[in-house]
């Protein structure tokens, strides 16, 4: 479309303003992490790296970090197994109810997080009678992480024709060999990308976590949330905040790189593998 000089300029300006709106708050947090003052005042009176060391020495933050790592790792493993199984079934077979699988997988993330949180909390405490702890957090996280793996792998399997697998079978390979030598290698980068995204999603989740974590379980986001209100912890909260941003950005960036060759991009929380792909979930 031919835009007038003025219209294009306006469009550029609007886009620039929106991007600035997206990035300024993230930048502010980075600056505050190096703030010499113990209170949040703008502009910061000076810059220091002192809090980085303090944050590393803070046992509460450190423990919470390892808890988050553990939760994210285990939830990712569950999501990888369940998500790839479901995507293999949907992409390689036709069966009754196939269309509803995608819907079922997306549901935990399409409903507000609080719904998933309260539903799981009620089931754990009232119906099953289990006490809340690390395991219940993992179950909650795995539930909403499945979709991320599923969407990435299903998109890949659709792109890679099933005829390779047929050829392998025709050449005498057993299904197991075909899976190991043909299917798995073609899924590989999609699996890694899905796993990375699931990890990032789990690592900084707070809403479902709030409702599924018991008194003794504290993930890093929960630690940040409880320490907001403690003024003497503020400098450390700032450092941890930057750290959480970095931990969640790096996997997304890597996942994007991994799937870029097929024009794919990290999906919207896994619910829409749209972006550059432009293809819809069935």
């Amino acid at each position, binding site marked *: 479309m031919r835009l007038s000089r003025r219209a294009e300029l306006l469009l550029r300006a609007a886009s620039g303003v929106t991007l600035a709106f997206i990035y300024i708050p*993230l930048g502010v947090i980075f600056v*505050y992490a190096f703030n010499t003052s113990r209170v949040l005042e703008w502009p910061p009176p000076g810059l220091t790296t002192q809090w980085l060391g303090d944050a590393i020495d803070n046992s509460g933050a450190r423990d919470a970090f390892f808890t988050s790592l553990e939760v994210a790792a285990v939830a990712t493993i569950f999501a990888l197994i369940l998500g790839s199984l479901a995507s293999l079934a949907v992409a390689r*077979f036709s069966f009754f109810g196939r269309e509803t699988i995608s819907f079922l997988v997306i549901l935990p993330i399409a409903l507000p997080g609080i719904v998933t949180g309260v539903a799981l909390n009620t089931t754990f405490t009232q119906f099953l009678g289990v006490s809340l702890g690390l395991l219940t957090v993992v179950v909650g996280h795995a539930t909403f992480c499945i979709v991320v793996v599923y969407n990435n792998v299903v998109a890949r399997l659709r792109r890679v024709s099933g005829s390779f697998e047929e050829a392998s079978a025709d050449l005498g390979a*057993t299904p197991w060999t075909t899976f190991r030598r043909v299917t798995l290698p073609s899924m590989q980068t999609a699996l890694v990308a899905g796993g990375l995204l699931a990890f990032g999603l789990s690592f900084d989740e707070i809403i479902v976590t709030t409702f599924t974590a018991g008194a003794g379980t504290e993930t890093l986001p929960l630690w940040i949330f409880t320490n907001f209100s403690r003024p003497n912890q503020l400098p450390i909260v700032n450092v941890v905040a930057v750290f959480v941003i970095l931990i969640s950005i790096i996997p997304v960036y890597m996942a994007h790189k991994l799937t870029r060759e097929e024009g794919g991009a990290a999906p919207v929380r896994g619910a829409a593998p749209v972006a550059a792909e432009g293809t819809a979930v069935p």
Partner: protein
Amino acid sequence: MGHRLADLFHGRPRLQVGGLLAGPVGWLVIGYLGSLAVLLAASFWSLGELSGEVQQTFTLDNFDTIFTDSVYRSITLRTILIAALVTLTDALLALPLAFFMAKVARPRSKGLLVVAVLVPLWSSYLVKVYAWRTILSEDGIFNWALDPLGLSGPGYGNVAVWLVMSYIWLPYMIIPVYAGLERIPNSVLAASDDLGAKPWRTFRRVIWPLVFPAIVAGSIFTFSLTLGDFITPSLVSSTQFIGNVIYSNITTNLPLAAAYTTVPIAIMIVYLLIARRLGAFEHV
């Protein structure tokens, strides 16, 4: 082991599908849908008058409280209103940027822009709310920037909730709208141009009808996520929204919390039905 298992499944597609789906479908149907069913059941329970323990007997009292008590009614309305406002704001902000990404930017900068929008989308939700808390605070960057003009920022309150939620859910709108615009062939726009339509007319008559379902698709996320949020209101305002009420009741009055959770579920079901009618599902 692998071999023997594979031999068992060989030539039996039904068994294969069953084997593949047992885990994920079992988890999601029994685990997740089952939990939703328990949630629904719990919304009809009550608290024992003396013990304060959850009584698993049927009562409609919770729903009676939610729908007749004016406090709950106004909280529900306020939450729907803020979700609608946030959705509208995000649509207005997303459209120019998405259009620029899809139709104006060169391929190289387009790739960069997609990453630039996606990366903050995934970066920590809590930290973003926290960033805004510092920006809007008394000594924050907002007041600092406005001070020379003799103005001051909105501070904490409803305006802050609207601003912060619009900020946080914005990428969820940009991505589907961008994808929707990408799907419109440039030749269609060129045809409109050749037939003498001015850009504004092309936008209104060609682009808007084609991109509208994508906006509705994005609005599912902005609307749904705003409906359930309780962290943002608790950090940048002292106002109560649906999420705050559920959060503060979960340990003290679980049946009431469960009953109130059905409100956002019901709203989202209606919303999704309308969205499907508007053709949004091809864009989700």
